[in-house]
C-alpha cells in the first residue's frame, strides 16, 4: 500500500490511562485504527483489553489521555457519550438482546427512537441486516427462542442497524458452544470483507490470521506488542507473548 494516501483515522487513542479505584487498568495506551482496518486484541483475563474497547464507546470513562472517534474528541466524564455511541457499534460476550422484544423490534428500536427513522424504513433496514447475518426468517421470534449463535448474530445485526462507522466486539464467541462459534465468526469475516472497520477482543486466532490487519497482545494494562498476524504468530518478540501464544495455539 506504500505510496497511496493514508486512509482516514477512525479511532485515535493517545496516552490513555484508566483506574478502577486504586487499580491502574490501562497504562499509557496508544492506538490508531484507520478506515477498513481490522484489529484483533488478545491477552490474558484482567489485561485491560475489554476495558480498552469499553472506553472507546464510553461504557467506561477514562481519566487521562485522549480518545478520538471519527474525529470527535471523547470528553472525559462522558458528556458527549451519546454522539460517540451512535458512531460505534458494540457486540457483547453475553449478547444482551432485549428479551421482551422480538428480533425485529430489537433491531428497529434505535433507528426509530434514537435516529427518528419512520417505522417502515427502520423495518426495511433491520430486515436487510438480519438477512446479512442469515437470520431474517426468525425476525418475529423472541431472543430466548433462538440458539446462542443465532442470538449473537442478531446482536450483530442490531448494532449494524445504527449504521456505525466502527464495530467493537467484546469476546463475541466466548459464551458459545464450539459448533456455534463458526457461524458467528463467518458473519464477522463477511463483515470484514465488506470493509467494516473493526476492533475485536477475541482468542479466535484462526479468525485473526484470516482477516486481521494487526494483532495486539495486551498484558497488565499495556499493549505489549502488535503486528500483522503473519509476523505476530511466527516471531513474537517478547517472552510474555510467546508464553501466552503457547497456551492458546
Amino acid at each position, binding site marked *: 500500500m506504500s505510496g497511496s494516501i493514508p486512509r482516514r483515522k477512525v479511532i485515535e487513542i493517545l496516552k490513555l490511562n484508566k483506574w478502577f479505584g486504586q487499580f491502574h487498568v490501562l497504562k499509557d495506551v496508544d492506538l490508531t485504527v484507520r478506515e477498513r482496518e481490522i484489529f484483533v486484541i488478545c491477552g490474558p483475563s484482567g489485561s485491560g483489553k475489554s476495558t480498552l474497547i469499553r472506553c472507546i464507546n464510553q461504557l467506561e470513562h477514562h481519566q487521562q489521555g485522549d480518545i478520538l472517534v471519527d474525529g470527535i474528541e471523547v470528553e472525559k466524564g462522558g458528556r458527549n457519550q451519546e454522539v460517540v455511541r451512535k458512531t460505534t457499534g458494540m457486540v457483547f460476550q453475553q449478547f444482551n438482546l*432485549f428479551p*421482551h422484544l422480538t428480533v425485529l423490534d430489537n433491531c428497529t*428500536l434505535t433507528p426509530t427512537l434514537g435516529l427518528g427513522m419512520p417505522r417502515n424504513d427502520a423495518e426495511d433496514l433491520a430486515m436487510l441486516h438480519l438477512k446479512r447475518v442469515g437470520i431474517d426468517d426468525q425476525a418475529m421470534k423472541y431472543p430466548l427462542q433462538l440458539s446462542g449463535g443465532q442470538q449473537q448474530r442478531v446482536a450483530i445485526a442490531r448494532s449494524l442497524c445504527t449504521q456505525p462507522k466502527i464495530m467493537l466486539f467484546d469476546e463475541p464467541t466466548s459464551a458459545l458452544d464450539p459448533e456455534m462459534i463458526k457461524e458467528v465468526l463467518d458473519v464477522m469475516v463477511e463483515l470484514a470483507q465488506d470493509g467494516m472497520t473493526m476492533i475485536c477482543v477475541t482468542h479466535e486466532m484462526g479468525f485473526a490470521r484470516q482477516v486481521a490487519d494487526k494483532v495486539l497482545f495486551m498484558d497488565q494494562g499495556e499493549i505489549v506488542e502488535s503486528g500483522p498476524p503473519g509476523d505476530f504468530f511466527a516471531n513474537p518478540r517478547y517472552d510474555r507473548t510467546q508464553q501466552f501464544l503457547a497456551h492458546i495455539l
Partner: protein
Amino acid sequence: MTMIFEPKADRPPPPSETGLVAWLRQNLFKDIPNTLMTILGMYLAFTVLSWVLDWALFNAVWDADTRRECLDAVGRSGACWPGVVEWLPNLIYGLYPKDAVWRINLGFLAFVLWMVPLWLPRVKSKVAIGLMAVILYPFLASYFFLGGEKGFVWTALIAAGVWGLVWVWATALCERATDLSVGAWLGRRIAGSSDEQIQKRVRQGAALLLYVICFGLVSAWSLEEVRTQFWGGLFLTLVISGIGITFSLPAGILLALGRRSHLPVISMLSTIFIELFRSVPLITILFMFNTMLPLFMPEGTDVNQLVRAIVAVCLFAAAYMAEVIRGGLQAIPKGQYEAAASLGLGYWQTTTQVVMPQALKIMIPTIVGNFIGLFKDTTLVSIIGLFDLMNMARAVGEDTDWLGLFIEPFFFVSLIYFVFCYAMSSYSIGLEAKLSKGRDR
C-alpha cells in the same frame, strides 16, 4: 474407513398408569400415612363446610323484621339474613340519596365501557386507551359522583372526560373495522390522502370538533351536588382504593427511579419520602392527615375529610410501590443497560423501552399483591369516621332493629372482599401467562 453415524428413531414414551383409579392411588392412597392424611383432611373439610353451610343456608332465617324474631325462630344456630338484606343499599352505596344512586352505577359503567376496548382483539392503541382512562376518566367519574356547581375550568375538564370516552370508542371501532387509526381512516375518507401530515391535521381537527360538542353538552348538563359525607359502603371503598391504586403505580415508578438516580438531591429526597412513609403505620398516617393537616393549612381553607384520607392512602401506597418497582429494576442485568447505552439510547428511552417493561413484568405478582393489600387496607379509614364497606357492616349491629347483628354482615362483607381480591389475583395470573407466552424457551 469412516463410519456413518445414524441416530436412532424416536419412540413414544412407555405407557404410564393413567385413568382416575390410578391417579387416586398415586396421589391420595399411596401408602398408609398418605391414606390417613387423606382421610383426616377430608374429615376436616367436611366438618367445616357442613358447619358453615348449616349456619349460612340450611338453618338460616330469610324473613324477619327484627333480630329478636330471628333469635326466637332458630337461636344462634342459623344466620339472620334479613338484617343484611335491609341494609344492602347502605352497604353498597352508603347514605347516597336513593334517587341519585343511578349516578354511581352509571359512573362505574362508564369505567367498564372505557376498559372494554383493552380486551378487544385488533385494537392497537391499547396503551393510549389505558393512559386516557387513567388521566381523563377521574374527571368524568368525579362529576357523576359529586355533581354540583361547575365553573369554566371544571366544565372543560369534565368535557375532556366525556370526550375521552367517545374518542376511545371511536378509535377502537375504527381500528377493529378497518385496521387503520382514526386519523388515517378520516384522512382517506375526507381528504382522500394517505399523507401522514394531512392525516394528522384531520385527526386533530376531528378531535377538536368532538371536544367542542362535548363541551357544549357538558355545559348544558347539571347534576345536584351530593356531598362526600353521604358517600359510603362498597362505593366509598372502591373510590378510595381505585384512586390509591391508580396513583400508586406511576408515583411508585417515579420514586423508584428517583431513588436509583445518579443525581444526589433527587435520590436523597426520594429515599427520605419512601423511608418516612414506609416506617409509619397507615393508621398513624391517616390520623396525622386527619387531625394535623388542617393545622398547617392557611386559615379558612377547609380540606374535605375524604380528600385527606385519599391523600394519605395514596402517599402510603406510593412509598410501598416504589420499593416493589425498585426490586424489579434491580433484577434487570447490567448488560441490558450497557446494550441500550451502546446503541446510543438516552436515559428515558432506556427506561421506558428496555428496563421498565421487563421490570414491571417480573414484578406483576408483587404489584398486584400490593394492590390487593391496598384494597383491604382501606378498611382503616373507618378509624377516622368514614363509613366504608367495613364500617357500614359494623353499623348494621347498631341499628335498634338489628342490635347485635355483627357476624352476618361481616360474613357478607368478607365475601365481597374475597370476590374483588380473588378477581384481581386471577387477572394477574392470566396476565403473567399472556405476557410470558412465546417469550421463554
